[in-house]
């Protein structure tokens, strides 16, 4: 009985000690965030063999988590290196995973990596030229982040000509071709995105509106 109680006592103390160490590790890791590490594409393709979809899912989850971690940090500490490589590889594994490319482009552009966001979308567009969502999203990224209004308008035009594209593409193209205040159009666009988007896109829209000086309730 004495030995049992001693064992239980020691167990209690060390369960507490390990929790304390883990708590400290969480703090240290938060203070020294590491960059997103992506496996070498050639090797990864050989290794995943027939589990490509699963590998794409894992990379996608990893990217989302990394993105979430960066948003918790101060803006100057954020590190989105490796994000494009992860999304690019995941889209190679599962090209039909369109959400990965479209939402991935939001994450990249929001992380001030607009050229990579465009590159990712262009790759998707090259694979699926009949899908409206790629030129449509390219329009948003060119307009809201790259600020290339002519290119953005051309992308929206291109999207509008494709089957099942929402009518907003035509309106966006018209607004961008027209001379006028693009800031107001940007605010209106972000507000529309904020109202219609899911939680993750709403977060991006909220930050963008804040940067444009428009307050949005949390």
């Amino acid at each position, binding site marked *: 009985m004495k*030995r*049992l109680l001693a*064992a*239980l006592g*020691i*167990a209690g103390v*060390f*369960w507490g*000690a*390990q*929790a*304390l*160490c*883990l*708590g*400290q*590790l969480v703090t*240290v*890791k938060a*203070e*020294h965030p*590491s*960059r997103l*590490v992506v496996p*070498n594409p*050639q*090797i990864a393709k050989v290794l995943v063999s027939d589990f490509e979809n699963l590998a794409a899912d894992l990379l996608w*989850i990893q990217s989302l*988590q990394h993105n*979430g971690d960066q948003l918790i940090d101060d803006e100057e500490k954020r590190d989105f290196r490796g994000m494009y490589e992860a999304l690019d590889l995941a889209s190679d594994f599962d090209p039909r995973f369109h959400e990965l490319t479209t939402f991935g482009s939001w994450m990249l552009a929001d992380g001030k990596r607009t050229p990579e966001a465009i590159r990712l979308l262009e790759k998707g567009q090259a694979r699926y030229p009949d899908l409206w969502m790629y030129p449509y999203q390219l329009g948003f990224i060119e307009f809201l982040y790259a600020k290339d209004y002519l290119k953005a308008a051309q992308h929206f035009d291109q999207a509008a000509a494709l089957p099942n594209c929402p009518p907003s593409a035509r309106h966006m193209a018209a607004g961008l071709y027209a001379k006028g205040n693009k800031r107001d159009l940007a605010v209106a666009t972000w507000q529309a995105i904020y109202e219609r988007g899911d939680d993750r896109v709403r977060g991006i829209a909220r930050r963008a509106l804040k940067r444009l000086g428009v307050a949005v309730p949390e």
Partner: protein
Amino acid sequence: MTRLWDLARNTFRETIRDRILYVLLVFALLMIASSVVFGTLTIGQDQKIVLDLGLGAIELFGVAIAIFVGTSMIYKEIDKRTVYVVLTKPVPRPIFLIGKFLGLSLTLWVLLGLMGVGYLGLAALKGVFAPALIGAIGLIGLQLMLLVAITVFFSSFTSPILGMILTFSLYLIGHNTEALRVLAQKASPALKAAMEALYYVLPNLSTFDAKNQVVYGEAVPALRWIWAVGYGLAYTVALLATASAIFERREF
């Protein structure tokens, strides 16, 4: 103390004679060496491949050895009834368990040393040796010790097959516990508290993973090493103490 050392030494002798160890060791060394061939498949990244594959092979084969040998170690003693010979002598049950744990841990550290020498030698030949690599291997060793403690814990109350499945599951879960914290952020307060508690109870094996940072030459903060070592040792002792409490009440 003498009894503990005797038990550890005998377990070390017993496990080191196991042929499966040598098969796994040869495979591990072959895999480390094959990283040179894999490296040639890429352009300009061969050194990274050597480092990645080598560290990966060391961890994977170490885990295989820890699980295969660890889960059957105590069961064999019970099955062959040799446990009675030991426990009828003035050897407390916790000493028996800890002796077994220390013996297998010693075997693993010896094998890790052999694999490490092969790996670091190859890294030196390729001109990519860095002292931090030794630290990364040390952390793998700590992880393996924790895994041995898990196998001892399961061995104290379950069969080898079930122990193997449970240990392997914990190994997989242990490398993904960070997901629990992410999920907890979106959960209801009660579920959040439960998930947080689970996060602190389940082994966090990512703590021992410095592979990526070391390979990319990123600085690993000193505190990270210190707390990881502290965590590994504390968790191991906690598990062994819990296993001792269970084993103390076990009837044969």
